[in-house]
């Protein structure tokens, strides 16, 4: 059984102008020890997916449809109290700009211990601190820094402390939302390497959310490309990045500067992302698409299987099949 199975997830936000569908019919699954990455531009719904899985949607957001099967249990049906028992214990999240998530007036070690104590009420403080020590060793912070305050840490160390906190209850699934965006490349590289090692050691499933294609390509077995609330292409890293079929994936890849290849082939995507309150009929990308055909505007695209797991939501691919 897959660790996580999401079926036809739809998440809406109530706004002044009506319901905004931030996530529209997204389905995917993830096994233990595997990682899945979501890429897309800002506003495509990737963070909303993470928040939806954690049950931490803002007050105006709610799950309209779909199922989130975690270890066989549907999280959508759980009450807030039941969800609290799952959250952090079984599913942990590393938030965007996580280094600002630490309490500035509490020692870092104590903060991590608190996360353990809240979820293991019977545990003594000393036992919890022992666990914190182990966690710090695990993520590569010297244990004599446990009694320091967050301002004495560098950005990379704070990020490691946050990862330690996410690991505190030995979760089966970690959702990492832009975990290294604010860090320098060298520190980022170290943290990603550590994350990879920890994933292997504890057999954790990880969902990476990032706008940085290169990180997702480096870290994830499977990739989901998102556009305007929909998953538009899904497949293994090799399938999606080496043989992309959806025009949006191709456009995204060619707008990304790399260290190799021809200098001249950086191509921006024209236009802006569409309105999600009244989404257009047909394909949502077609106004910006280089390869559009007349039927793109009229027909709602359907999933086309391209390979083993590789699939794309595109009318042109449908034709070519």
């Amino acid at each position, binding site marked *: 059984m897959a660790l996580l199975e999401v079926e036809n997830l739809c998440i809406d936000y109530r706004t002044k102008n009506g319901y905004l569908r931030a996530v529209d019919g997204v389905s995917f699954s993830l096994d233990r020890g595997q990682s899945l990455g979501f890429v897309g531009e800002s506003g495509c719904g990737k963070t909303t997916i993470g928040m939806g899985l954690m049950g931490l949607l803002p007050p105006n957001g709610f799950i309209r449809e779909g199922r989130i099967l975690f270890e066989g249990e549907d999280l959508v049906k759980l009450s807030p109290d039941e969800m609290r028992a799952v959250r952090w214990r079984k599913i942990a999240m590393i938030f965007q700009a996580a280094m600002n998530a630490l309490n500035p007036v509490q020692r870092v070690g104590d903060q991590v211990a608190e996360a353990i104590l809240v979820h293991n009420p019977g545990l003594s403080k000393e036992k919890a601190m022992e666990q914190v020590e182990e966690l710090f060793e695990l993520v590569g912070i010297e244990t004599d820094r446990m009694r320091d305050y967050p301002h004495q840490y560098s950005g990379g160390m704070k990020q490691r402390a946050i990862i330690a906190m996410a690991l505190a209850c030995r979760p089966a699934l970690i959702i990492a939302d832009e975990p290294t965006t604010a860090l320098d490349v060298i520190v980022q590289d170290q943290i990603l390497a550590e994350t990879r090692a920890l994933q292997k050691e504890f057999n954790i499933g990880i969902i990476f959310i990032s*706008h940085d294609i290169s990180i997702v*390509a480096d870290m994830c077995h499977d990739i989901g490309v998102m556009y305007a609330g929909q998953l538009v292409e899904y497949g293994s890293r090799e399938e999606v990045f080496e043989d992309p079929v959806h025009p949006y994936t191709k456009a995204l890849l060619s707008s990304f500067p790399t*260290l190799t290849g021809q200098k001249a082939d950086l191509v921006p995507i024209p236009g802006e992302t569409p309105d999600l309150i009244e989404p257009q009929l047909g394909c949502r990308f077609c106004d910006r698409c280089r390869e559009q055909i007349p039927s793109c505007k009229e027909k709602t695209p359907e999933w086309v299987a391209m390979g083993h797991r590789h699939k794309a939501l595109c009318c042109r691919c449908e034709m070519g099949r």
Partner: protein
Amino acid sequence: MQDRPEPILDIQNVEKIYRSKGALFGARRKDVVALRNVSLKICEGEIFGLVGESGSGKTTVGRLIVGLEDVTAGNILLDRENITQLKGRALKAFRRKVQMIFQDPYQSLNPQRSVLDTVSEPLVIHRLGRSADRKEQVHKALKAAGLSPPENFFYRYPHRLSGGQRQRVAIARAMVLNPKFVIADEPTSMLDASISAQIFNILLKLRESLDVTQMFITHSLAAARYLCDRIAVIYRGKVMEVGSGEMVIRNPRHPYTQALIDALPKFRTRGVVKRYDTLLEKDRRLEATLTGCPFYPRCAVADERRCHREDPELKLLGDGHYVACFRLA
């Protein structure tokens, strides 16, 4: 340093130290050395990339050139005129020639001003043209920055613009004075990749059409490679390597540049980019001193006897490629 004709901007041995006053009760004064002995020459019409991590001093270089901060020592020459001593009218005249594009377009635009107000403000400040002409100049600047048709944007306020559009307004504001030199400080770090590519292409086009020399400050080697003719890599206030973009990235010689390239995610570069492994597993925990190479505490190939005592100078390796490292001497 570079034997090319007539640099438009000449930074000579610039040093910048931020003095701290220390705490009220006795804490020691600790000065922060932001730049040490930085010398760079930028030629007319070139796009020059300054690459470094956060805290490396790259933004400080930009702020010194525009005159937002004063140098502690050294000279900065623009068109052979020393700008570090300028005051009053001369300073104002100089500011017409140099403009800056800031990192965050959500903060650098005044939310209470329309696009027309924002972009024409520099003209008003420098008393250029009459108001009718100004509108035309704003029109031209917006068009050059890729906002078309410009009339549609005149009376919009920043909250009705997307991030990419805001940054283009910021570019238009910098370009409206027809500056000789523009500094773009991480102009795309807040934007998505697809929008970044648009901004890059606008900057490239501006160089062609208006002949503006640019300094592009970034943390991304890949972006610098795409945009820049030459690149300088800066670490803890010291310039480590200077050379043409291709040279620095294809054949990095300084251990720090090599470590940077190692650290980049190997997306689409598997097997193409070789690993250098110049970074120490564990940092040598040394007190930061003013002597020695700033990269010494992290450098795996450092010479224990020499590198932490002497400060290496930039040496020419040939073909305009300069590296500050004893290992290569």
